[in-house]
């Protein structure tokens, strides 16, 4: 097992290096040097141009450029943003924190609810409820996330006025206590979370349902019942416990999909996270910010894949002990 993790770690490092190289290629080697790109969109004085050139190291040969770039990254220097007039690092860090709030809650909901609904559908196999859930999942998968967000805002915020239209907090709000601040945050979280959950949950429902259905027909399920175990124990300890394995594999695909969902939802709801940041950086052609966002997204997904691989190994003894 330790050997396996060691191997996977090595592979992880290689992948991260490849991500860095890809990032470098994309943003530094594209037609026209990056300074030109940026200068095109902004009005830059000589000092700004000089700072840019030094960050990108454009007068050096390519390999040195790459090394300079990586060195900068390790020092925490992600460049200078012209729209925010400050260095990129702190901007990204703050946005990342905001995104994590949204993503953590919605991911928990997606996995837990998705599996529960999938298990429910499998236990009602063949009935109209099950058929309805499957069709429903397909329909939900076909909904564009950003459009779902727009609909939610229109119905619940604009027409009904129950919830805020956008943002993470009410503008210019004063909070007498921490609790009122958290309450305001919670109110702003509801719609974006619903938007993120609605589309992604379908995937988990379908996977856990088909996985459990396959497990239910196995002999060891009959053995468990024959032993006189309670139906609950049979379903969860023997059924779901085995059905979860493909679901864990699915979470690695989910990580990449979540990134896409985050970008769309944050854009529509003006949630000040990484998703909105990368969107705005495109609108304003702020390449250093775009580059940093891409890097963070890629690293997070690579790490999530790694974690999901290791988790699977831990859960499946057939794989763990060979």
């Amino acid at each position, binding site marked *: 097992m330790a050997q396996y993790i060691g191997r996977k770690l090595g592979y992880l490092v290689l992948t991260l290096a490849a991500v860095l190289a890809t990032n470098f290629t994309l943003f530094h080697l594209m037609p026209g040097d990056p300074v030109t790109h940026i200068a095109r969109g902004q009005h830059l004085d000589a000092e700004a141009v000089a700072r840019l050139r030094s960050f990108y190291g454009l007068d050096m040969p390519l390999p040195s450029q790459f090394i300079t770039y990586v060195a900068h990254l390790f020092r925490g220097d992600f460049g200078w943003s012209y729209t925010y007039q400050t260095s990129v690092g702190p901007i990204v860090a703050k946005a990342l924190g905001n995104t994590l709030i949204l993503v953590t809650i919605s991911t928990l909901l997606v996995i837990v609810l998705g599996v529960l609904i999938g298990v429910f559908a499998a236990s009602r196999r063949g009935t109209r409820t099950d058929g309805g859930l499957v069709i429903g999942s397909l329909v939900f998968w*076909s909904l564009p996330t950003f459009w779902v967000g727009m*609909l939610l805002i229109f119905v619940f915020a604009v027409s009904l006025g129950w919830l805020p239209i956008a943002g993470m907090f009410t503008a210019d709000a004063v909070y007498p206590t921490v609790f009122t601040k958290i309450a305001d945050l919670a109110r702003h979280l509801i719609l974006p979370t619903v938007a993120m959950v609605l589309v992604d949950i379908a995937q988990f429902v379908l996977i856990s349902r088909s996985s459990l259905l396959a497990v239910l027909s196995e002999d060891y399920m009959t053995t468990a019942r024959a032993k006189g175990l309670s139906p609950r124990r049979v379903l969860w300890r023997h059924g779901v416990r085995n059905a979860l394995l493909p679901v864990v594999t699915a979470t690695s695909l989910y990580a990449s999909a979540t990134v*896409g969902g985050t970008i769309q939802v944050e854009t529509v709801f003006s949630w000040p996270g990484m998703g909105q940041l990368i969107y705005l950086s495109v609108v304003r052609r702020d390449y250093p910010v775009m580059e940093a966002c891409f890097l963070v997204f890629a690293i997070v997904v690579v790490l999530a894949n790694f974690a999901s691989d290791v988790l699977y190994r831990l859960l499946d003894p057939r794989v763990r002990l060979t």
Partner: protein
Amino acid sequence: MTGPMMNPSLDAAPATGHVAGGWRGVLRQLVADRMGRIGLLMVVAVVLVAVAGPLLAPYDRTAVAASRTGILQSPSAAHWLGTDELGRDILRQVLAGTSVSLEIGLIATLITVLIGTAVGVLAGWFTGFVDAVLMRITDFFLVLPSLPLMIALGAIIGQSLTMIVFVIALTSWPSTARIVRSQALAVREREVVARARTVGLSSAGILWRLILPGVLALVIANAVLVIAGSILAEATLSFLGLGDPTRTSWGQILHNAFVTGAVGNGYWWYFLPPGIGIVIVVLAFSLVGQSLERILDPRLAAAA
């Protein structure tokens, strides 16, 4: 042994594999399946609208309002779906968007399938080093989150529908390649291939006459699902502002709606119809694709 071998047992394996009756049999099973039937009907309806749609709405797509009163009108007898911020008829735009979205989805899928199949077949056939290298590359692309990659490329390359097609294909080919590779590996193990080798058929010959037809069925089922995904991807990219402002795709309409504040101001006729259009088209292809997959995938069929 010289000359081409006319051994009938080496005739290209039926592309539809185990399904009786070839492609017509597949179609029959597709229609028999409730999900497939509904999906197929929806696809046909969508194609009809794409082709004949623009004829339904009498307005020129680019005609703008003469005065301020013509903008952002809610639906009326004159404009069934109202007008946008420039006074253009929305129904006309939505109908025109059908063909644009379909077009992009189909072209992107074509490229995706070509690349994915080529990589998958080569990896599955040659195995060993070639397979390892190709799969490492494929896995790497799979790990890169697709939307940020598409956004980055879009911003760098510039806005155009060609860019969108290229960028969608670039992020979609890996999953197709994986599917094709495992099927190619399975076909490779079949007796027919071993016999072909002993008879002296060249690698290229086997690839063309046995492996490709063997994976074709799965490729087609997968392609239909890729169409659905591509249409969704294009809508998302155009919505985020990376589309071509001069071509009316549904995503582009939604982008215009969003930046005009249609949501906050409640202009539901502006953003509801294009979204519904997307859902219908994507759902249509998803239904057909899922149904086809169930019919054509030998592993799923064996389990049924």
